[in-house]
């Protein structure tokens, strides 16, 4: 073999060992294009651009969009004016998904159940609907001035997760996988866990767009095989499967010797990895060995399909080195009866999220794990449906709202107990220090050690990135 060819093979092998599936970067075409793009611009190297603040991320997306106004962004003025017709400028010429007639303002009910409490040393105001989260308030860093550009679910989900409102762009998790890969080559870089039905954007919410498909999120399912096609056909034992894989690899080695195509070497290693995954993935998903105390803390139950289980799984994945864990939880689209529906949902997620944060902290993982809580948009301060006067619990809901909403981050590199930006006194628009979705994504990438402007992929004659040509890192939230 010529030295050049050996060199070529070893570069190939390098890629093969950098992450799950990346052996895949078999990318005959993509690989070439990447290397050529890199030589044209030496600054456009993939990977870490600076010292990361966090090595892992658990990104919790509340599908449908929770009413941030009733959870985290307390608006006494809105409560005071509840039932009054909203100001003209909230309605005239505005794009609203459902509201068609000038609506009333609607504040959080005054009842103690919905009241906000000053929590911890930070004094974060968090609704009584999230009592467990109140207990970890000092870990949370709120952004209360986030705004987006889309007001329907599927486009807004695509926009917040891929930076573009239509199909075809890579998701944030796949960008991270592409940029910095993973620690554990027996598990994917980017794992997705769903509770409830799949969100409207479908698989594209964790798709790889024009990036190589090895970077797409892999859904670990709570029913059936956790990873599709993981289990052997009925009647085939683990030992028998091993012998099949050995035979396949033996025959493939014979081919490799006579043909010399490095792709065959890659395939051999991928079959080995597939076999290893058949035990490593079920082990990872099996929470039965977690202590009773842990289950009690999360509200999880071995084998169940629930958001609580997914929180526990997220911690287990981070422990095993998975880079990006994304949780989707369906059921937050409260167009009517928001004050009945919201407590039912918060009851499902409050305890497990707080447990996750505490658990990560106790295990020394929180410092290197970024926890993000977000949604595709917020909800209107105006009522959808008749709002009542605030005396009696309103049966109305809140419509989609893109002008201002609240998300939070915790852990790796963010200022716990801090709050950034604010909405106006009625919660309609981002009043102080607005943060755009592109800024938010740039900040997440920054915390992971990635410069969002430099992690690019050449496609259709231009360098694409997650944040298009926008995005500023919100330095103020970073330690």
């Amino acid at each position, binding site marked *: 073999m010529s030295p050049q060819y050996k060199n070529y093979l070893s570069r190939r092998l390098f890629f093969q060992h950098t992450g799950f599936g990346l052996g895949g970067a078999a990318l*005959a075409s993509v690989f070439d294009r990447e290397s050529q793009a890199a030589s044209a611009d030496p600054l456009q190297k993939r990977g870490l651009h600076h010292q990361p603040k966090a090595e892992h991320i658990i990104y919790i997306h509340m599908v449908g969009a929770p009413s941030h106004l009733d959870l985290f962004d307390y608006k006494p003025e809105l409560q005071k004016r509840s039932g009054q017709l909203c100001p003209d400028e909230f309605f005239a010429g505005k794009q609203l998904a459902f509201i068609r007639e000038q609506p009333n303002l609607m504040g959080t009910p005054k009842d103690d159940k919905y009241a906000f409490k000053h929590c911890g040393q930070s004094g974060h105001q968090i609704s009584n609907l999230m009592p467990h989260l109140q207990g970890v308030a000092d870990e949370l860093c709120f952004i209360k001035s986030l705004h987006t550009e889309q007001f329907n679910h599927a486009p807004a989900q695509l926009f917040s997760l891929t930076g573009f409102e239509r199909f075809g762009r890579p998701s944030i998790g796949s960008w991270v996988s592409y940029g910095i890969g993973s620690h554990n080559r027996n598990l994917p870089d980017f794992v997705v866990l769903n509770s409830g039905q799949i969100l409207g954007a479908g698989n594209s919410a964790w798709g790889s767009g024009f990036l190589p498909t090895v970077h797409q999120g892999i859904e670990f399912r709570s029913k059936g095989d956790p990873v599709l096609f993981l289990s052997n056909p*009925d009647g085939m034992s683990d030992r028998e499967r091993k012998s099949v894989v050995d035979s396949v690899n033996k025959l493939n080695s014979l081919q490799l010797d006579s043909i010399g195509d490095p792709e065959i070497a890659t395939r051999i290693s991928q079959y080995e990895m597939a076999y290893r995954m058949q035990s490593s993935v079920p082990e990872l998903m099996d929470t039965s060995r977690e202590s009773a105390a842990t289950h009690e803390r999360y509200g999880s139950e071995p084998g169940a399909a629930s958001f609580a289980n997914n929180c526990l799984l997220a911690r287990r994945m981070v422990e095993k080195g998975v880079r990006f864990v994304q949780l989707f939880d369906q059921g937050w689209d409260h167009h009517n009866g928001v004050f009945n529906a919201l407590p039912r949902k918060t009851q499902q997620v409050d305890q497990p999220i707080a447990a996750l944060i505490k658990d990560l902290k106790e295990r020394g993982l929180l410092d290197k794990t970024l926890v993000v809580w977000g949604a595709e948009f917020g909800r209107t301060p105006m009522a959808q449906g008749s709002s009542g006067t605030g005396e009696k619990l309103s049966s109305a809901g809140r419509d989609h709202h893109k002008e201002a909403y609240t998300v939070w981050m915790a852990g790796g590199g963010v200022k716990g107990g801090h709050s950034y930006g604010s909405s106006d006194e009625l919660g309609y628009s981002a009043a102080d220090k607005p943060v755009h979705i592109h800024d938010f994504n740039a900040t997440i990438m920054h915390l992971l050690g990635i410069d969002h402007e430099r992690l690019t992929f050449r496609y259709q004659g231009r360098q694409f990135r997650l944040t298009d040509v926008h995005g500023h890192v919100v330095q103020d939230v970073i330690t």
Partner: protein
Amino acid sequence: MPLIPAIPHFGILSQEERLNRVRNILNRVHKFLNRVQSLFWAVCLSSALDAAAEDEKAIDFNRDIRPIISENCVHCHGPDPETRDAGLRLDTQAGAMEDLGGYQALVPHDLESSEMWYRIMLDADDDELMPPADSKRALTAEQKDLVRRWIESGGEYQEHWAFVAPEREAGHTIDHFIQKQADARQLTLAERAKASAQIRRASLDIIGLPPTPEELDDFLLAYSQDAEAAYASLVDRLLASPRFGERWARQWLDLARYADSNGFQADQLRDSWAYRDWVIDALNDNMPYDRFTIEQLAGDLLPDATLEQKIATGFHRTVTCNVEAGVHVEQNRTNQVVDRVNTTGTVWLGVTMECAQCHDHKYDPFTMREYYQMFAYFNNTPVEVSVPSGKTDVSHDFVGPFMDLPQSPELVAQREQIAAELKAVRAEKKKLDTKSAYTEWQQQMRAEPEWQTCQVQAFESTGGETSEVLADQSVLMKGKFSAITDYRATMTVETPQLARAIRLEVLTHDQLPGQGPGRGDETRTNFVLNELELEIDGQPVELVDAKASFSQNKYDVSGLIDGDISSGWAIAPEYRKDHWATFQLTEPVELSKDSQLQVVLRHAYKGGRTIGRFRVSVLDGIPKSSDMDAELLSILKKQKPSKSEQKKLRAAYEKSSPALAAMVKKEAQLDKKQKALKPDQTLVMQEMDEGRMTRIMKRGNYLDQGDEVQAGTPAVLPAIDPELPANRLGLAQWLVNGENPLVARVAVNRWWAEIFGRGIVATLEDFGTQSEPPTHPELLDWLAIELVESGWDMKHVLRHIFLSETYRQDSRVVDSQVDPPNHFLARAPRFRLEAERIRDNALAVSGLLSTKMHGRPIMPYQPDNIWRQVGRNEPKWIEAKDENRWRRGIYIVYRRAAPYPSMVNFDAPDRGACTVERPRTNTPLQALTMLNDPAYVEMALAFADRILTESDSPSVAARLHTAYRIAFSREALPAEIEHLSEVVAERVEHFTKDPTAAQKTIAGASRVYQAQHSDPAELAAWFYIGNILLNLDEMVTKS
């Protein structure tokens, strides 16, 4: 030296500063030349890889300089005046040489006077450095040297090659151009591949399926007699096969972003598969590419457009459509037009128009105005979503032009038959309608209803729930929760009476999740009841005239008694309330104390919404419903109802008189049948009578409109004939008039890439100034001209390629000094097949493949729980158990939110947007798919069965040879036979000893397929061989 002017960007400099700058330049040039010298040695030593590029031949602007300028300068000094800095534009010769006030960026032959050179040579920390530090771009030493040599040699610009018409010298062949580039790199082309490899490769490439053992034998025989003739006739046979269109349609359907669903929220299915079939047929018929283009872009606008020409316009109706509640109709429409413009640009021109949607293109010569001129061509079709009348909170309706497809004579006959029956029923109905019956009904209606609650004697359910009969005789469901469940209650009455009607109450209760009345979800406490059946003393009782307290849209209470398990009654969003449904018996029944009423409530909704608590009662009379009946009662009490009141009364009578209602029900059933038989439809493009005015949308925002524009084509391309109509038809005709420098090149390049794994231009989707330069520019032009001159004959061009020596080479990787990735094709490419061909090939090898063509999308095996999204009209996966299970991948239903998962693992896109090239990865998920996907496991069993049936001899070696000939079109090698024989021996021994294991293995693999081989131990053992062979690299690779 030029004087530095006082323009803000450059700043004002004193004479002293100017002199310093000159000194600086000289210093730098000196340092640079030193660096260049060492670089020269480094390059010489490094590798022969870039032999061609390193050669000191003349600078080629397009090859050497344009990429540097495009990448580093044009973003701020480009065609877009909005973002142009310092009034300088570097993408044109005139711009670069413009007088900037006594100096120029570029002065030909004069390095020192060229400001551009000065700027790029500044130190990294210099504020005036270009590109500036904050752009995060920097030129390499090699690039600077290229710029130096270019300026010194005259600094001449050339037009980007792709915008100049192709030219070719007569007389050459494909091989000539490949040889020429290979020679330049001292590459020796490989020998021809073995005959068996040639037939396998050609078969997989041309029809996407392997040769059968018979085809292999015939070919080898013919090849031994006359290799050239045998091979040529093989290629011709394959090109003429109907399988050709099925294989090549995949690439086009990726471009056309063809799918069977809308995309976005809910992602409902819609019908445009006739378009998919049109593509397959057009490819099989070798429709010339110009006609292929015109019919898809504008078939509807052709004079006397045929049915097929209209179906072809499905190309642009495949675009995604968001019907999510809350979508603004115009925004959705604009997004669709944008997609059509961008896709047209990518597919035919190989350029990315979309950059110009918000501003003039940064790199390529397309202005924002031109973008909207293209937009204007597509801006005249109707909207495709509409808000259901009076409802703002449900998904919108998917509308837009569609067309009925013709039906078979049998179906037409069936429809006529049903129409005749319907007519008879209507006549019968009329007969029953007597005056006395009407009067009796009116009397009953006036009576006050007295419901008698039925006493529950026994209750059981099929879902394993427990239940409790409460004091009020309602049944409360508890314990286990099952989505699919039947409740069966046996009841009696305390007081004998005549039963004319029955009532089902569905009640709330504190113990139910969210209070019920459903028990599936505590937020949406809905139930979906699919059927209600009543038996009295073992006799089924027919029910009519369903009424309810409330019925959810599309879940009308009448669905309970229509005999159709898929329809049913639900009550969203009227949660947490008591509900009722009433029905009349067609024949009144006398109930005694001993009469046994049995009520069956069937739940079949997979989403899991079952009734939490219910109660049943009976009535001697006509049940009243809510508002409607209150009004009727007041009419009935009137002495002289008005005309309109009488009409209302009649209508109510026709619906609820027991005598008539049975006929009404029959009528409804026939009506439903008739609807089920209505012709299939397909989505088409249709121009509105009056077109829209197109305006530039500022920053691409549809709400922020600027100047009006007229339809038109980009100025950089040959002008459109003013005689052509200013619509899609004119645009399509302009594209394929033979003068466009891009259209043919882009098309042949894609075909080349499909065969060789990489385009002559590697960036298939982009031929603009940022594209990869072609590896074989002359070959690209030769193919493009061949396409046009042959009358846009695709198969003619493909035939040239398949008959070339380049294509027929061996693919083994010999110890290559240069070009390891094989860009210059000194051997045949070897790469993994794409998702559809992997499935099709494995199906063919297993012997299961059905070659049935065309029609509605198929649903083969897929794991449970893949399709789960929220929304109205959510589609369901119904696994085919017939031959549809084993048809080619191109026919599998393409649902954008969740495409067929085993194909996704092999890089199939979601078809949400135009896909020009699929990645080709190699992952453990692919290994798991081939090893364990029940679809492939079933194929492995069928393959084993086939080997055992087809082998002439029962010897293991003979069987292995048979297997290899089927799977790989070759004999098995001794080492392969040796290893696999050991596997067979071990497995046969194991399964002979343990017959239960053999049975279990076979059962585990056969979901539908029933194997023929009679010896289970042998079959199970060879199933292992099938599983191994289907997983070999060779099985998924074109070699």
